[in-house]
């Protein structure tokens, strides 16, 4: 019930936003849709009653309409819903409001569907469908590079997810059902799991994105308007991490374990690689894109290491990444509004004029670089501690990210806020503070009390303890 409602309510909101009469109320409607998702997920966390619905569509194939919300999806949905609500509130002066907010609510509905679907066909439908309105948003409302960025967004992700269909067909033939929980209980033979695991992971690796497949992301983040960038960096990546942890890991554990060394190496190298490139960026949005990439490689590290603690860390790091990157993008937008461009070379000495902005920016950067007390540290430490047992080398390499992250984070702070005043502007207004406050509160809350989230993860969502290699 709750699960279906969390998909239907944004759909209804999308239709409402498209109505011509109430176009002035489109923004509040979109924001409320996001908040409704947050509220429903919170309800799902708090309640003990069952929240799912299951009906059968195609019994011959074993496909059906199965939706359910468990601890992991509810926690991540809270973050995603919050991001959508804040992004909608931040889209103040957009042309063609009705179309924009209708598409916005549509993306929310489809992305929520990814988190609640417990049937593989349903999952795949929502997975692919969420790309379409997002691409339209980038294509129509984006910046200079928008056509190319939107094309690459769609092409790369579709190409990555196409092999997933092969996996769906394989499982339908092999087991006769496509219900994820049933399939997780009756897995296919361990020796035969490698190929389906690789094909399933390709979809999630393309969207996360995992290290060599990240070509579409920085461009998309730069070309999209800031709220849409929030969705790309926060929503898409969170859904990919969710898929890794809740779809491919329960279905093909031995296959992923066989392929784990390769992916761990890619993730460790990718974390350092992305952090290194972030130090060279002049455009604030590209810097945030590569910072986000670096944090997501740590998520991938936790998911592929597949120990109970590393998966907890991966979920925590995913939630942390969502809020941190959202706050960074919003702050980048606020800085750009004052310096009239996103270039770091045009900014300087803002701290004198905008001390509150400087303080919030420094706090968010601390969250990005992993200062204890912020969610970034909690996620990274739990992930690395969980991954250290089986993969000490990859974990040691990934710990080097701490050093490089400090370089790009604090160089950004220095170039924007310290030094001779090249730019000036007014300090944060109450509207901007209201946008940032929930994100920063969540960063600190998850940093000081991460067990609030990790305790919600049901133990059957975590991999069982495997025999030591």
């Amino acid at each position, binding site marked *: 019930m709750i699960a279906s409602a969390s998909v239907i309510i944004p759909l209804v909101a999308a239709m409402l936003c498209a109505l011509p009469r109430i176009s002035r109320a489109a923004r509040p409607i979109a924001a409320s849709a996001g908040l409704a998702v947050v509220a429903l997920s919170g309800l799902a966390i708090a309640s003990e009653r069952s929240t799912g619905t299951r009906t059968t569509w195609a019994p011959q194939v074993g496909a059906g309409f199965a939706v359910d919300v468990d601890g992991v999806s509810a926690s991540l949905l809270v973050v995603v819903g919050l991001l959508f609500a804040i992004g909608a509130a931040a889209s103040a002066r957009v042309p063609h409001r009705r179309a924009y907010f209708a598409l916005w609510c549509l993306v929310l509905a489809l992305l929520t569907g990814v988190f609640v679907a417990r049937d593989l066909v349903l999952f795949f439908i929502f997975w692919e469908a969420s790309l379409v309105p997002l691409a339209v948003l980038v294509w129509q409302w984006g910046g200079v590079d928008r056509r190319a960025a939107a*094309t*690459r967004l769609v*092409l*790369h992700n579709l*190409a990555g997810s196409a092999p997933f269909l092969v996996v769906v067909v394989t499982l339908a033939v092999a087991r006769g059902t496509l219900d994820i929980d049933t399939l997780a209980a009756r897995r296919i033979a361990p020796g035969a799991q490698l190929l389906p695991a690789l094909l399933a992971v390709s979809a999630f690796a393309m969207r996360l994105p995992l290290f*060599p497949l*990240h*070509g*579409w992301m920085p*461009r998309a983040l730069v070309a999209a308007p800031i709220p849409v960038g929030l969705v790309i960096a926060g929503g898409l990546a969170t859904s990919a991490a969710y898929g890794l942890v809740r779809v491919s890991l329960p279905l093909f554990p031995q296959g992923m374990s066989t392929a784990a060394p390769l992916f761990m190496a890619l993730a460790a190298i990718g974390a350092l*690689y992305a952090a*290194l*490139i972030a*130090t*060279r960026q002049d455009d604030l949005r590209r810097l945030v894109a590569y910072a986000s990439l670096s944090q997501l490689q740590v998520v991938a590290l936790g998911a592929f290491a597949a120990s109970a*603690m590393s998966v*907890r860390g991966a979920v925590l790091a995913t939630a942390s990444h969502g809020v941190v990157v959202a706050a960074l993008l919003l702050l980048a937008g606020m800085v750009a509004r004052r310096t009239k461009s996103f270039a770091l070379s045009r900014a300087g000495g803002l*701290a*004198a004029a905008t*001390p509150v902005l400087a*303080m919030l920016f420094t706090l968010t950067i*601390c969250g990005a670089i992993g*200062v*204890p*007390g912020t969610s970034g*540290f*909690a996620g990274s*430490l*739990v992930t*690395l*501690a969980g991954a*250290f*047992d089986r993969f*000490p080398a990859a*974990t*040691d390499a990934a*710990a*080097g990210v*701490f*050093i490089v992250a*400090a*370089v790009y984070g*604090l*160089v950004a702070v*220095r170039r924007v806020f*310290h*030094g*001779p005043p090249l730019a000036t502007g007014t300090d944060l207004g109450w509207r901007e503070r209201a946008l940032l406050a929930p994100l920063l509160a969540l960063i600190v809350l998850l940093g*000081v*009390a*991460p*067990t609030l989230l*990790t*305790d919600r993860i049901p133990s059957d969502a975590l991999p069982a303890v495997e025999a030591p290699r």
Partner: protein
Amino acid sequence: MTLLLVVALPFTAAIILALVGARLGRYAGAFLAASLALSFGAALAIAQAFFAGKISLIADTGIVWLPLRGADFALRVDTPMVPVLVGLTAVALLVWLASLGVRDEGTEPARSGAAFGLTVGALLLVVTASNLVLLFAGWELLAVGTYLLVADRRDRPAAAAAALRSLIVARVGDSALLLALLWYFGTFRTSDIGELAQRIDGFGTQPDAVARLQAALLVPSLLLLVAALARSAQLPLHVWLPETAHTGTAASALIQSSVAAAGVLLLLRVAPLLSRDALAAAATIGAITAAFAALVALAQSDRRRLVAWSTVSQVGLMFVGAGAGTTSLVIVQLLAHAFGKSALLLGERVRGRRAGALALAAGALSIAVIAPSLLTAVALSVLLTGVYTARLLRLSAAPRHERPVGGALALAATVALAVTALTLAVVTASGSPWVATIALAGLATGVAVTRRAVRPPLPVWLVAAARSGFELDALYRLSLVAAFDAGARSVERGTERVVAWAGDAFGLRVARLGRQLERAQRRYAGAAEALAIAAAAALVAFWSLR
């Protein structure tokens, strides 16, 4: 509960000042002073309990912080750490009180107060954390607090660069500490320091197991040593401390007296977890740094840089003691250095009788810390450290009416500084002649210079080389920083271009294929039907051949 107050009060004050400090205006300083005074009082209460016979105090809130075993919000104090707790809270309180009368340009009381409170809280967390995760948290927050303190002078363009450098060097140490933490947690399945010490001690009965354990412990112990070196500005990670010469009064006093000693505190706290070779390495590096930094300090002509280099040197001597295992002597030295160095730094800026009296009280307190039996050995080390003060006084050749509270303060500072050198007897008793030789060399330098009353009898070229720290700074900039930049640039221009090109090439192929298909469809209008017939034929063939 009292222990929690000691650590929580500075943090709370920092948070409140960060959030609403701008509203408080002038009273921000008084607010922080009140919190620090309460924290000091709580520390005194704990000391009183220990005098009454307590051996250790554990404050376990029972709240689990991270889902790792042993990572609770739990604090712990044993007997050796009680004087450190009292001393550090006292130093923090006195430094802040004395700096209330000083107005540094480019700073605001609320912002400096928040950074100060954060640093003090983090330092106390490092002293009292009961598990490695909380220790790491305090360590990292100490790095952030130092960054904020150093970056606080908005009117100095060098401030931001120096702050960045301090945090990067600290982060190198932090990642070493993180790796050590991961190793200890992965091997022993707990992060509680007491439990780890117990498990490592438990090997003590079987000799071959002990040998294997020592070999296994070597790498994580070296990592912990690197963390301590980075925080305390020892060779080769010393480059950040002399750059902080421009920081404000309270900030520089806190950083040089207490924060630089945090590395020593780390070594003292995790000493049961370290291998013996790592401790010997700590002593060696400390001795080398003490001699090196003493030489560089003597060649400085800038007053602040001289003080910074002298801090490096004296913390090196503390490392020698920590490596030799003489915990109580190191703590005495640490406290005396904390009080003396802050008195020295405050004496430069602080004017007026009230502040001077405060600083004198600080100096007197440091004398009270001395145990009488040490005086004989201490007299030998007066020479080495008194040289700094003498040179300092010579540099302060300002006219008399402008000179800040000088004479008595400097005397107190000198005596206190003198206490900070470790005795040669202890050094030779640890059995390492290498360490003793280097420390002797440093002392001999001090004796020679004192006899000449301040001007170093060194050749000009040596002085010139030493003034810039033997160009280690430039060496780092050329090798590490340039290599990092070159590596990042090549990665960006090389691999990232390839990845972007590959994505574009793939997109171009797909687009071209689509256009070709469209053209083919238009050219061969009947193609759709032909394809359908061909597909049906293929299916028939497939099914018939099965």
